[in-house]
């Protein structure tokens, strides 16, 4: 087991990882950009290195600076958090080349799963249902039209190098396809440096269900159950919960089993998430794998009592999973709300500024993961996540009431700073959400009203 970890991330997840390290007696090194000089998260690190300026491309996304900091501080492992370099196979390889343990799957696994078309093939070969679509990256627009015709409209065009809801377009009519193909191609090339695309049938009115996996280097693979992440705005998750409400437990067990099979087939190692859609008829289809810890991992922690980041670290340290299927006792319902510094009244535009008042909620069965504090500056350089509020309750109604109570307590103020707190409360109060009859289109329908 390594005795020190460099945390190559920022914000609440850097804090989350630092806490897990401290509890394991592992020394922590945090790297940070100049924009984060005063982040309270840095307090929790044993050592800090300022590696670059505010733009992520020269700090959190710049491997040489991160690796230099690791070498200088004698860090033995690197935890990449989520986003940034967390799923970059080249970065994982550079770490291993330098003798650093990369806290995540092997570079080869990251590479295969990062190619979303390849991930579909792997999943399909492992017996997981996938949506009808292209077996390989599309060669050109006319192949796209042919495949879309075979698959049947609506379809979704996705970037092979994409994921996490970015670089995709839904196409409902054949006449829109050519335009969407070239637009998405340009977008993908710009965002990921890889313009390759693939096509899948698009499921309207779906539920987004994902499965938390833990897999060690000794062949043990464990499911920690599903999460429902159907409350999304433009494919960005706002509210996540577990168990998935209003869906048959037998179906959920089937999806979890599928995820375990998929993880075994690809040789997955670490904490990972298998994403699925469930259509209105209760059929489910594999979408992609997120090869890292997820933003929404705390809901799984709340109902299982398992510390996922701790498990990640132990797995990276070559330990065998101490948990077996029968040890995973799920209890109650957990919900997470993402509080972003965005203005719902102006199209969820990020609102940079200095947070002057910051009083997160407290109390029983309420957890807040945040790097927020009075005086922090929200900058446009990074995503607008300010805090995650997670609650659990004995049943879903109670958990919803508790979340509403917690959000009502949350006080964030600062010139120009707005948050999504009020909007989240509106979603919680929506009859479709309360009755668990919502789909991924709920939020868009609320906004377009």
């Amino acid at each position, binding site marked *: 087991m390594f005795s020190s970890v460099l945390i190559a991330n920022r914000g609440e997840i850097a804090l989350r990882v630092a806490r897990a390290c401290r509890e394991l007696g592992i020394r922590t090194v945090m790297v940070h950009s100049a924009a984060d000089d005063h982040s309270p998260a840095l307090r929790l690190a044993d050592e800090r290195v300022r*590696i670059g300026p505010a733009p992520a491309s020269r700090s959190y996304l*710049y491997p*040489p600076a991160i690796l*230099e900091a690791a070498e*200088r501080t004698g860090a033995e492992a690197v935890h990449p958090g989520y986003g940034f370099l967390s799923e970059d196979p080249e970065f994982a390889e550079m770490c291993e080349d330098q003798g650093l343990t990369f806290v995540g799957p092997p570079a080869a696994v990251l590479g295969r799963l990062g190619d979303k078309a390849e991930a579909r093939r792997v999943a399909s070969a492992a017996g997981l249902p996938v949506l009808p679509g292209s077996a390989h990256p599309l060669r050109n627009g006319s192949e796209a039209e042919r495949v879309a015709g075979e698959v049947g409209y609506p379809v979704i065009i996705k970037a092979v190098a994409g994921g996490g809801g970015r670089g995709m377009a839904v196409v409902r009519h054949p006449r829109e396809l050519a335009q969407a193909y070239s637009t998405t191609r340009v977008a993908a090339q710009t965002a990921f440096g890889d313009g390759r695309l693939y096509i899948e049938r698009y499921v309207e009115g779906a539920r987004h269900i994902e499965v938390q996996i833990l897999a060690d280097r000794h062949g043990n693979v464990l499911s920690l159950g599903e999460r429902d992440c159907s409350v999304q705005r433009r494919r960005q998750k706002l509210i996540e919960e577990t168990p998935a409400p209003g869906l048959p437990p037998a179906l959920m067990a089937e999806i979890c089993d599928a995820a375990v099979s998929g993880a075994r087939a690809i040789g997955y190692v670490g904490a990972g998430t298998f994403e699925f859609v469930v259509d209105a008829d209760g059929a489910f289809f594999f979408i992609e794998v997120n090869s890292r810890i997820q933003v929404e991992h705390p809901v799984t922690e709340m109902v299982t009592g398992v510390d996922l980041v701790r498990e990640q670290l132990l797995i990276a340290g070559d330990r065998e999973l101490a948990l077996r299927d029968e040890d995973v006792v799920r209890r109650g319902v957990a919900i997470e709300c993402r509080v972003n510094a965005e203005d719902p009244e102006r199209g969820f535009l990020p609102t940079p500024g200095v947070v002057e008042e910051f009083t997160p909620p407290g109390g029983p069965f309420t957890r807040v993961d945040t790097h927020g504090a009075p005086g922090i500056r929200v900058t446009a350089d990074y995503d607008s996540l300010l805090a995650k509020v997670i609650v659990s309750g004995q049943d879903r109604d109670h958990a919803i009431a508790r979340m509403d109570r917690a959000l009502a307590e949350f006080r964030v103020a600062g*010139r120009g700073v707005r948050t999504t707190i009020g909007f989240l409360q509106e979603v919680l109060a929506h009859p479709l959400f309360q009755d668990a009859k919502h789909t991924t289109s709920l939020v868009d329908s609320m906004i377009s009203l």
Partner: protein
Amino acid sequence: MTESSEQLDALCRNVVRLLDAARGPVHTLRVVAGDAAVELIWPQPEPPVPGAGQAASRPPEVESASAAADGAEICAPTVGTFYRSPEPGSPPFVTEGDLVEAGQQVAILEAMKLMNPIEADRPGRITKIIVADGDPVEYGQPLFLISPDS
């Protein structure tokens, strides 16, 4: 909260921040918010008492990272190791007192075997080399002071 009490709140919070930053004793503090203005007056320094500590009555340092009183700073563009010479044993790129052109290389910053040349961003005289050869530096750390040659 009403808007005006919110404003007042913000105002006073900032005063507290200023006082914190001011540290030692302050004589006068004025703040006006409409179109902004801050005035901080420290008491006239006492004639120095031999042996007395300086810390308490020091005026606050608010130097920006790139502008120093006696010229400009050349700062580290990334984290790395600072080298004054192209290779061990060879003469340094510059020494204190040298005149340099804009764009002239003055040092190397090595990060993971990548050799980043450090160049003067303006013409002038190197008045101070702040970091020792071979020292590790962080992003933004001042490496040289450079003054206009007058």
